[in-house]
């Protein structure tokens, strides 16, 4: 059977990927450069019997998404930096209550209003630590329009598998550029649905570890009368703040849920890393410029290689450590003041880590990255 191809923008690919993953609820608020995701969702969702809501603000958007997920929906919202900031408290609720959902942040220049229409990567750390308290995060950063499609599908699958919000980080350029996307046939895609309880209704504990670290999640209306508080809670969902041991164990269970599944959550691309002396770490669209610079470096006999986390959080620290061990220098190529740098430094065992960045709303040219590679060579 012939493959189907479409020429899509990054935002269109995101919405189509979400629909392919089974999205049946979207709630959002218009914000440049993410708005087209909502527009396309508003057009396509009702065609499939799904629901689109335009909420009064971003806080309401993520709240409605989480609420819909409690009622069994596969739900998504999309925003950019300022909206992502507004959503953080409710994201925390999604994390603590362990509610599957997908949040797309199409990054733009910050801080504050910044520049709405230009790309940046200033939200990498916000994705990790935007909401208060300790919590693990799953965040993916596609580098192409096609990858946006497939990573959105994977984001939904991971949200369902691990009962957690998952972030997809795009940027203003990737969102609006057009590329060819191979559209998978329905049977080609693996779609994951959350585990649902099979026990008797009175026995159900919505946060009890069943051995996998991921408790089954009942859907409101199925007959399980369950409750969850945003206060630290025990396996019943009710507040359990009476002892330091209880508080600590609940927080640790959340961390553990992701840590013990890290091998399935991790995803990265390696390019010319086998003998690389200079490892460039880069994510998203700008990693393609870094890849071009690696090619140019290799043409000049410089052993450069690219390590591209696709799942940014949890960060692939073990693999980076291994690569760094065999390298002389590590570089990060990004579009901010060094957010990847901060994390990469922790796993490079004292090797020098150089920042190559252009944080002015334009995409860095490969020539500049190549110059930096030559300088450290």
């Amino acid at each position, binding site marked *: 059977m012939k493959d189907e191809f479409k020429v899509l923008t990054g935002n269109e690919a995101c919405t189509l990927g979400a629909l392919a993953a089974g999205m049946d*609820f979207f709630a959002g608020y218009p914000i440049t450069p993410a708005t087209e995701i909502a527009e396309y969702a508003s057009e396509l969702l009702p065609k499939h019997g799904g629901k689109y809501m335009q909420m009064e603000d971003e806080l309401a958007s993520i*709240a409605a998404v989480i609420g819909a997920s409690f009622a069994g929906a596969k739900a998504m919202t999309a925003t950019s930096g300022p909206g992502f900031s507004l959503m953080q408290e409710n994201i925390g609720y999604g994390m603590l209550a362990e509610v599957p959902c997908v949040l797309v942040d199409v990054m733009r220049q910050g801080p504050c209003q910044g520049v709405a229409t230009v790309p940046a990567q200033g939200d990498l750390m916000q994705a990790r630590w935007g909401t208060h308290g300790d919590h693990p995060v799953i965040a993916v950063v596609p580098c192409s329009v096609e990858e946006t499609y497939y990573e959105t599908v994977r984001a939904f699958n991971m949200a369902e598998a691990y009962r957690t919000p998952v972030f997809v980080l795009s940027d203003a350029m990737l969102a609006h550029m057009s590329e060819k996307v191979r559209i998978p046939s329905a049977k080609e895609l693996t779609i994951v649905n959350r585990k649902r309880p099979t026990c008797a209704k009175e026995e159900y504990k919505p946060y009890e570890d069943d051995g996998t670290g991921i408790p089954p999640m009942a859907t409101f209306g199925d007959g399980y*009368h369950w409750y969850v508080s945003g206060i630290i809670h025990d396996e019943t969902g009710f507040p359990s703040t009476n002892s330091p041991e209880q508080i600590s164990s609940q927080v640790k269970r959340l961390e553990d849920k992701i840590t013990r599944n890290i091998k399935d959550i991790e995803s990265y691309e390696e390019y010319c890393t086998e003998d690389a002396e200079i490892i460039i770490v880069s994510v998203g669209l700008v990693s393609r410029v870094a890849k071009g610079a690696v090619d140019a470096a290799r043409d000049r006999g410089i052993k450069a290689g690219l390590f591209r986390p696709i799942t940014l959080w949890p960060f692939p620290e073990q693999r980076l450590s291994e690569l760094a061990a065999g390298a002389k220098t590590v570089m990060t190529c990004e579009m901010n003041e060094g957010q990847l740098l901060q994390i990469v430094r922790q796993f490079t065992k004292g090797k020098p880590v150089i920042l190559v960045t252009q944080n002015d709303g334009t995409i860095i040219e490969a020539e500049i990255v190549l110059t930096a590679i030559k300088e450290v060579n």
Partner: protein
Amino acid sequence: MAQKAHVFDRLLRQDKLKTMWCSGCGNGIVMQALVRAIDKAGLDPDKVVVVAGIGCSCRANGYMNVCGIHTNHGRAIAYATGVKMANPNLHVIVVTGDGDCTSIGGNHFIHGARRNIDMTVVVFNNSNYGMTGGQFSPTTPYDAKTKTSIYGNIDPNFDISILAKASGATYVARSTTYHASMLTEQLTNAINHNGFSVVEAMCDCPTLFGRFNKQGDAAEMLLNWKKAAVPVKKADNMTEDELQGKVVIGEFVNRSDRREYTDIYEDVIKRAKES
């Protein structure tokens, strides 16, 4: 006739009682009225979802034997909107306080009403932020003493029922903890109403607001509501001066001329599928 178990046994989580509220707190009276209303309306408890914000009143759904989520301050209506939209067959009830609903939650309140999405919003109005120790809220009366208005409150206050009506809510009523039976009836009507329903329940905080303003013990605070309450029909013929210090109770809005939101969205689905 077959006997059912007492509503307290059917709809409350007995193992979670007694409540964490202070002695004499009006929240328990409002919660009881709500539980009775759910029962009177004949709702299937499997399909009931109670969404709460943050505040003393918002602990109520933890005592109720239905699905419940205890969300973030001011955001209950937004969460509830998602629940209802995803499954319109669920009976969605919101429990919120005066501050939770009209201060931090004000935007979601007015937009929920604007949409006329089917849910019952129970506003436990005790005129202060109780959980944080008794600060003034958007419903604290002028000149009242609270933890953050020790010289007397100067912030003008909302009339929640007028706010609900102006925003488009299609059922709006108010009663007090003294008038527990009326409250139950209003909540039953609100639940049965297909649209955004608001029941403002005037209730008492004897520990904080009541104490700071020398309003007496719990029983006296209930009797204060009795003295202050004016039925809406009588209030319609009173002047603004005569209504000073009074609380108008009754049903203010009961409209059937606005379609409910999830119902209208079915039209969108139909049009989209045909296009």
